[in-house]
């Protein structure tokens, strides 16, 4: 099977490396759609010593792509080799990882950290010292520039995949990738743009699968900004934004309104008691009360309250329209949000340096650990917005020892982020993928079809097998 990925300019590797990783490797654990953890390479786990030790029992028949059997020793070594500088931060709490017996490893923590399991659910099991050798259903056999060829791993512990090989092919644009799909040069289009989903869905030679992504779009604020540091201002901005209209007009209806960084499907989520409602009049009043009245502007001839810069990824048309809608809605209450498209390679350093007023982008809300990593203030964090109001509650989430504790902490998080909003959470995105009808996809409700690509097979093969 050939999978085509159209990467916008400036983001040449987006999607591709992630997809290859998904096929090539497997995490220690997996996350279900509701955020609960499930077994994968580790078949079960147990917290001990009051949350300061974590015992993982390993599956017995897991092999690396080079044929090496995964042993507790190798497993411990792999976890110990994890880089925690940019992610997997919870593993910084782990002081040691030791093999135990023939099928277990024991992680010792210096402090309770509930995110260790979440991070293990995102951490691929890689053979120490050999980054291309993993345990996933497919193994990398060739890399040709940005394209990767993988072949089915016969010793995959869940059974040899039906598809003998997969090619991940990068195209400069989505159009190129789509054109390749229709010319049967590829069998799957990784991402169908939301503007064209309805047309692709009408085709009978491909099937389109839509699922909720664990990414939310937000208008994040730099709370160090002289104006945006005002809670009232940030609240007013939240009230001025019509999220329904943003989803409808900005995302073509392909998204769910967001009220925070925690997915509504997450088991710990509960709708906030007082979510932000679209209330432009209320926003105006709030701004007036906060000392930001409308002021005439000779230059613009349109009175404004204040202006600020909003960075957005310059080469990604996905956010342009959304940004325009948000800009208009803010302009309607007198806020001038000046949009500043920036290439990704410049955007990330600016965000890290705090050199922004606001930015419009998407963030991962796959797990509470990701939420924690993004919003918990720490030096060198990805987005240096100066926001610290949620640190305490985020720490509570991290150290929660029960579901009830977690739920309570999550509810508190949403309340804190409502009372002192670090951003305007706009929407959870929907992803659409197109697969040639020549393949039977093992689609599961609420899951990305790529999560079980190892179960796909050529159309009709299942019927043949049944006969």
């Amino acid at each position, binding site marked *: 099977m050939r999978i085509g990925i159209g990467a916008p300019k400036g983001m040449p590797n987006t999607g591709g490396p992630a997809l290859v990783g998904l096929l090539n490797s497997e995490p220690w654990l997996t996350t279900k759609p509701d955020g609960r953890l499930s077994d994968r390479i580790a078949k079960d786990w147990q917290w001990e010593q009051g949350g300061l030790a974590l015992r993982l029992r390993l599956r017995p028949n897991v092999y690396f792509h080079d044929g090496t059997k995964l042993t507790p020793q190798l497993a411990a070594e792999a976890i110990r080799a994890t880089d925690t500088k940019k992610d997997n931060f919870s593993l910084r709490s782990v002081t040691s990882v030791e093999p135990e017996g023939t099928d277990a490893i024991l992680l010792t923590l210096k402090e309770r950290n509930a995110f260790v399991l979440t991070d293990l659910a995102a951490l691929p099991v890689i053979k120490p010292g050999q980054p291309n050798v993993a345990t996933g259903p497919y193994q990398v056999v060739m890399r040709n520039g940005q394209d990767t060829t993988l072949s089915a791993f016969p010793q995959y512990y869940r059974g040899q995949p039906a598809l003998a090989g997969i090619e991940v092919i990068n195209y400069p644009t989505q159009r190129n990738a789509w054109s390749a799909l229709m010319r049967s040069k590829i069998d799957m289009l990784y991402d169908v743009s939301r503007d064209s989903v309805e047309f692709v869905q009408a085709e009978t030679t491909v099937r389109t699968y839509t699922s909720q992504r664990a990414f939310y779009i937000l208008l994040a604020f730099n709370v160090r900004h002289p104006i945006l540091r005002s809670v009232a201002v940030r609240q007013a901005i939240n009230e001025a934004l019509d999220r329904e209209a943003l989803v409808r007009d900005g995302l073509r209806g392909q998204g769910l309104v967001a009220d925070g960084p925690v997915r509504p499907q997450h088991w710990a989520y509960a709708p906030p008691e007082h979510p932000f409602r679209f209330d432009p009049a209320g926003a105006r009043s709030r701004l007036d009360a906060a000392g930001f009245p409308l002021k005439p502007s000779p230059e613009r001839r349109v009175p404004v309250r204040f202006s600020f810069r909003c960075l957005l990824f310059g080469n990604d048309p996905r956010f342009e329209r959304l940004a325009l*809608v948000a800009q208009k809605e803010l302009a309607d209450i007198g806020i001038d949000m000046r949009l500043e*498209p920036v290439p990704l390679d410049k955007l990330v350093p600016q965000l890290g340096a705090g050199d922004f007023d606001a930015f419009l982008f998407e963030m991962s809300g796959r797990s509470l650990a990701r939420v924690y990593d993004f919003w918990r203030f720490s030096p060198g964090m990805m987005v240096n917005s100066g926001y610290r109001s949620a640190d305490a509650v985020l720490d509570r989430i991290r150290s929660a020892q029960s579901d009830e504790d977690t739920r309570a902490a999550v509810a508190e998080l949403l309340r804190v982020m409502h009372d002192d909003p670090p951003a305007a959470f706009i929407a959870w995105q929907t992803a659409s993928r197109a697969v040639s009808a020549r393949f039977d996809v093992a689609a599961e409700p609420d899951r990305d079809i790529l999560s079980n690509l190892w179960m796909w097979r050529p159309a009709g093969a299942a019927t043949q097998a049944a006969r």
Partner: protein
Amino acid sequence: MRRITTRFVLLIATAAVLPLVVYGAVSVQSLRRGTYTSVLDGNAKVAKQVAEQVKRYMQDNTRILQSVGTELAATGLTPFQQERALKDYVLAFREFREITVFNAAGEPLATSAPGKTRLTIPEQARKQPDKPFIEPVRVDDDLLPTTTIAVRLPNSQQDAAWVVGEIALEELWRMVNHVHVGTSGYALVVGEDGHLIAHGNPDERRHIADPEQTSAAEEARFAADFLAGRKISDEYEENDVRKLAVASALEAEPRWLVIVEQPKDEAMATASQAERQLIAIILLALLTTIVVGYFWGKSFIQRIFALTRVTRSLAEGRMDTRVALTGQDEIRELGDAFNSMADKLVELQENIRKQERQVMFGRIAAGLVHDLSHPIQNIGNSCKLILKMWEDAEYRDTFRRMVEREMQVVKRVLEDLQNIAKPIPLERFPIELNRTVGETVESMQPLAETAGITLKAELSPEPLFIEGDLFALGRVYRNLVVNAIQATAPGGLVVAAVEAQGERVQVRVYDTGCGIPPDRLQAIFEDFVTTKRRGLGLGLAISRKIVEQLGGRISVASEVGKGTTFVIDFARTSARPMAQAAG
């Protein structure tokens, strides 16, 4: 029988069905032609309507840009306000991706884009500033057809000279998607360069993104022919499907073409169905005609066959056979006439029989009188004499011998009469023909001499044996020789010849007599038939009977004035008479 019935059925079928077939063929042809024309006309109307819609759609987009430009040019807005306005337009008309206002030098003055504009004034637009310029449609990164429209602002009081907008033509696709002709007919839009812009068939739409568009080659070819005025409709095959296509051009810029194509099978389905129905009706009519014609013909012919059968029965002698025909038509009349004829025939036959009986009776009586009167008279005369000469012992002996002799004659005559009706008792022994015939000839010499005729025997060089009754065959030979002598004038010749003919032997008795007329020859062997003036006419009948009972054949050939030849042939036998066998 069958031939007549078949011909009858064929006649009816041809008379009834042939006109129907001809009519059907003409109707089908007309229907197909009419349907074809009607389909093309209907689809052409659809194409025209779609073209009108597309034209209005593009004109609307162009007008929007014009109004944007006019608004910005005439109202003296600040750049901030202009950008706000452009963004409002882009948000209000979601097909507009971006709108930018340029000055005459091509420098952007205001744009709806978040950052810098991606647009420029197309060079081609500058060459024709008096009318809106629409760039060739392309498919953008969002997989949607996109074009750029540039509008020159007339009499602008400010720097704004051009408005350029990038438009995603989704609505064009939606418009085309809604066009369905039948179940598999679609509309598509082709650009001036023959490039596919929109396709109502979702599975064909992909070719829009294909730069080479090899799969849309037929449409492009038709489009070129249409624009050149060579064709207004076309038929072509695509993906193994034969399609009918008509086109309609937009009556304004852009000079796109709307093609409506429909699978020919589907388009002609009505005509095809009518054709099938017509064929079915014709076949049904034909079958009905054949069945009805067969049974009706059969019932019609049956009466003729009945008549034929009865006629044959009548010919075979079953005179009591009559035909009973139903109906009130000529056949019935024929049957009645036949029955009348048969009745008449029986009556006539009865009359003829009566006459023949009378004639025969007369002949028999005459023959009997002839054959019996002489011996009876002799006996009568002798009886008279015996009364007188009773004392004469010698006369009494002569009287006895005469009576015995004459009684033998009477007995023979009565025996012949008796034998003609039943098989003659014969014995079969091997006999030698030369001897039999020779003896007969010798015994008949006195008669021949008396008649002045030469009688001789021509015997075979070798003995010839047959199985036969010596006495009966002697009688046959004598009968033939006597007849020959009686039929030959003095000086004539009568010969009895014996010769072998392979496994058979023949005895021929021929004469140089007067011959027998042909009309009598046929019945010469029948009872009571004679060429003589008198006699019962049983001689040859009995001779034939004897020969046939012995397994032989007898025949006659004669020529009046020349003579007659009787031929008897028997199968040879290897058996020998007992005396010879013992010897």
